[in-house]
């Protein structure tokens, strides 16, 4: 019961916050609401026994990505834009599509059949700690993708610098 209550709170907040994020006119507000949203999602992760994921959700998303967003928003002078219409005129069509998609997707959930469970039971993870279990998998079985991920980040860093750099007038 308590669990369901917790879930209810988080789910409600997440949805409300999501709606706020996409509907606020001023991007700064959106970013703020999103920050809150990410904390709630991190909470949900904890609830699902994923401490490490929850941590990086806060550190990377909330700490890094959102701050980046904030920087950008502040960097750009969007004052004039705020007076313009923020929502596309065709939003009813988009709403219809999204709603229909939601209905079909949730309808599909009924067909879900639980598959065989794996070896990482809650107890097993707890005894080993989540971070260690994740780390072991990541550095053994998923080493190669991990390396690629690092490469992607490197590329992103270089790319971001190249793109954002002001053109030197020669």
């Amino acid at each position, binding site marked *: 019961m308590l669990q369901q209550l917790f879930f209810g709170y988080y789910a409600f907040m997440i949805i409300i916050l999501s709606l706020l994020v996409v509907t606020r006119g001023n991007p700064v507000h959106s970013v703020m609401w999103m920050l809150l949203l990410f904390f709630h999602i991190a909470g949900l992760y904890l609830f699902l026994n994923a401490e490490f994921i929850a941590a990086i959700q806060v550190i990377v998303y909330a700490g890094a990505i959102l701050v980046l967003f904030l920087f950008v928003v502040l960097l750009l002078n969007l004052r004039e834009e705020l007076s313009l219409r923020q929502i596309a005129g065709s939003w009813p069509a988009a709403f219809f*599509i*999204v709603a229909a*998609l939601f209905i079909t997707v949730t309808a*599909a959930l009924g067909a879900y059949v639980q598959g065989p469970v794996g070896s990482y039971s809650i107890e097993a993870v707890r005894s080993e700690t989540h971070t260690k279990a994740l780390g072991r998998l990541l550095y053994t079985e998923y080493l190669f993708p991990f390396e690629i991920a690092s490469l992607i980040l490197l590329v992103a860093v270089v790319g971001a610098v190249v793109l954002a750099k002001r053109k030197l007038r020669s």
Partner: protein
Amino acid sequence: MNSYALIPFLPLAAFVINILFGRKYLKENAHWVSILAVAGSWVLAVMALIDVLGGNTINFDLYTWMLSGGFKVSVGFLIDQLTVVMLIVVTTCSTLIHIYSVGYMHGDSGYYRFFAYLSLFTFSMLMLVMANNFLQLYFGWEGVGLCSYFLIGYYFNKKSASDAGKKAFIVNRFGDFGFGLGIFVVFLTFGTVYYEPVFSQAGGLAEATFNFLGYDVHLMTLIALLLFCGSVGKSAQIPLHVWLPDAMEGPTPVSALIHAATMVTAGVFLVARCSPIFSLSETALMVVALTGAITSLFAATIGLVQNDLKRIIAYSTVSQLGYMFLACGVGAYTAGIFHLYTHAFFKALLFLCAGSVMHAMGGELDIQKMGNLKKYMPVTYMTMLIASFSISGIPGLAGFFSKDEILWMAYAGESPVGKFVWAIGTLVAFLTAFYSFRLIFLTFHGKFRGTHDQEHHLHESPKSMTIPLMLLCVGAVAAGWVGIPALIGEKIGVHNYIAEFMKPVLGHPEGHGTHGEEMVVMLISITVGLAGIGLAYFMYILRPELPARLTQQLSAVHRILFNKYYVDELYSFIIVRPAIWTAKNVLIGITDARIIEAVVNGVPSAIAALSSGLRKIQTGLMQHYATIMATGILIIVAIMLLR
């Protein structure tokens, strides 16, 4: 290898040497190579004559030329009575004309080129007459055509000369078209193109029919007529005679060698060579006879009014070639070949004399501007006079015997059109004598009508030119003595040697007439010859003002004759211009541009139109794309769910 194979290859070697080294090294000495080569061929030809007179026929293959499936053909030589006569004619004329050219072409910038072509021509002509199969004949046939093209267009900077060369080649191609088809039919029928099996099998197929283009036609008639197409082209018979007068654009020795003595007679040679086939088709023979007769009359009438020295002789050649065909057409192949042989001498002589006159007149050809040349050029005058007597059929000279033989055979032969062509032949004999002497009188008699400058330069030609004239003159007088008809021969104790000689190849039909009739025919032909000369004398010596008056009174006739019956204009109107017009306006303008290109360019245009419609969907707005993508996802998910 048989040494007779060298007969054609000596001139070929001379050609190769001259064309490769002539321009840089031989230059003014180019003639030595050619003359030596052709003289060598002449010696070998005489040896071959002796051999054949001894009763041998030589037939050998040099190497296999083409081999494809059942089709095999070699380069090979057949030397029999007919070939050897041709060999003598060709090598003799060629040698003399080579020598003559040394003087005539002296100082010309293309000296080496001229001799190279002459040698190449001699080679081709010899290949033609010596072939032992149809394809090699065709080889020589086209080869001589090529040389004629080169030599007519020798002064290629002149538009008229290059036009004439091209015209000769293309008109001949029309004839060769038929000739080629004839060879195909021969191969399809006999499975071979060698003379020997073809001629020996021909008799067995005398009644056979052949399905040609959907029609069943008499096989031998078909083959004969197709081959005759080639003859018509090469020997300038109606309707393909148009090239020969224009061919006079070439240097005069060329006109003498190619367009009088040798190449143009190849058509007659072809008919004679294929006599076993022609003899099996009465229709074909009739066509040959009528074509020959009509051409000879046609050309003779044109010759009456022309003023160009060489063109008159050219029309006379066409006319005499018609005579030869007339002979072949009535089955008297020997007479045809005999006339070919005598004609080679007197006609070559006429041309060379004309060349000599031109030489003296500085290239002037209009006989209206000449006159009284006999005073300046006695040798030329005498030889030309004799040649004209010979062509007019004055008894004792070469032309008389051959012409008389033809007329008698036409009159007395078995041909259904014999009497008709005899009548035409006799008329032509009259016209020939007339225009020949019109030429003589206008050129050599009367008063000189050219410019003072020209008169000042008049001179007799150099020795290298006059000696061949005199040698040919001997031929023009004496060449006929080998074919003295029995009527006279019996009295003076000689045979008709040539008829006996040729009998194994060409047969020798006997005339169905009495000696009396033969005498009458002969007298008629002598009379008309003399009458023609007399009339010319009357009109151009006694009453020189008469021709102009006649021209005025008969201006319509004169205009038609003078313009050669407008045949050139007709061809231009019905063939040349429509072809080019079609090419320009229909094929390029409509088929290629409007139809094919319309389709080719139309497909891309249609795609372009379609895509310009489709591109309106491409708003460039990211959210539109995303929305469409979302719709797609919705549809896919929905489909997966409903399945």
